[in-house]
């Protein structure tokens, strides 16, 4: 049965059901990080609120420096493998505008920076991100690895496709993506995707470059 799992502030939710959708609504300065291992069929979404825990381990999902490790641990417990996990993230906006000088409201930018640093430290490849700006976002992460972003007053758009199908596509294999939109999106981002994969070291399935 398909389910919508709401991921509130500082929460981490995982799913092993292909039909489930993980949802983070109204990300302002917060960041939603989607992680997916398509072979194991494990998805996870964390709703990060602040950049630095300062050693506080009570709510690991709240802080950029602890959330990624916790998300990884929970996904591995469900059978995911760290080296197969792909990441897409969104959020980190600056909603408030001021007349003249703005006070210390750059929390969104600091969240984005800390989260990216944390992902790099964990050696998780970021396939796509939509960070910064001054608009809030809603994030829908489908069980098949599709990540969609919605901004008020705009149409929902595809942010990434975190699947092995995508990998196969990049290796020039036959694929069976049914969603034309995703396919189009992915072909466009193919070069970028290959680049990310090349930079990943312990990757078991080598990218087959087509012999010319």
């Amino acid at each position, binding site marked *: 049965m398909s389910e919508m799992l709401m991921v509130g*502030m500082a929460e981490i939710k995982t799913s092993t059901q292909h039909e489930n959708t993980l949802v983070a*609504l*109204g*990300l302002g300065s917060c960041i939603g990080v989607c992680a997916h291992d398509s072979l194991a069929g494990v998805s996870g979404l964390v709703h990060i609120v602040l950049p630095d825990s300062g050693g506080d381990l009570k709510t690991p999902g709240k802080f950029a420096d602890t959330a990624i490790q916790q998300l990884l641990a929970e996904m591995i417990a469900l059978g995911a493998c760290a080296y197969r996990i792909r990441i897409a993230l969104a959020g980190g906006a600056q909603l*408030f505008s*001021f007349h003249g000088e703005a006070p210390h409201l750059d929390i969104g930018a600091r969240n984005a920076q800390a989260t990216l640093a944390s992902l790099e430290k964990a050696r998780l490849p970021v396939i796509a991100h939509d960070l910064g700006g001054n608009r*809030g976002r*809603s994030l829908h992460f489908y069980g098949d690895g599709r990540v969609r972003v919605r901004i008020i007053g705009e149409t929902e758009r595809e942010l990434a496709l975190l699947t092995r199908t995508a990998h196969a596509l990049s290796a020039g294999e036959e694929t069976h993506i049914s969603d034309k939109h995703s396919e189009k999106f992915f072909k466009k981002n193919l070069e970028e995707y290959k680049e990310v994969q090349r930079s990943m070291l312990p990757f078991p399935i080598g990218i087959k470059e087509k012999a010319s």
Partner: protein
Amino acid sequence: MVTLEQNPLDLRRDALREIGNIGAGNAVTALACLLDRPVQMSVPHVGVLQANRFIERAGGYEALAVCIYLPVKGDAPGHVAYVLPFESACQLVDCLLMLTVGTTREFGEMERSALMEVGNILTSSYLMALAEMSGLNLIATPPGLAMDMAAAIVATIATAFSPEEDSLLTIETRIEEGDLKIEGHFIFIPDPGSLTAILRALQVEF
């Protein structure tokens, strides 16, 4: 440090509720002066709400909301915000610009400016009530404006300004006058330590 959440004594909460009531009363008096007509305001709810619960009360996660926020400096630094649904904000602008209710449908520079001004007046008069009651020196600084999903706004003010705390002291207000219906929430977010200072000034035992 005193936090709102782990607050076992109703006395403190009552003190804050009282501040809320009086503050909102002051704010509506200011609004009546500004609009030059009598305004009826009710306060359906005053209390401490968790951020998620508050978002639900404010119209739902993805509902379009407007927030006027201003930082408070002085003896008890913190933040005051006025959050209202988009429709209410439009009506408020109509009132201010002396237009028929229902005229404003989108926000340009003029509307934003008007809204920021009224937000400034409302929040400042709320602050003034608190300052008078407590005898503390509280200074309002220029406001900021945001227009976005309710969840995004609430999360931003709840966390950016009080990292330790995701509960908010909120005062739900409803202004009704003829076909005018403006719903809004005042939110008071004390900086760490400020709540202690306020309660001490109000001579509430804790």
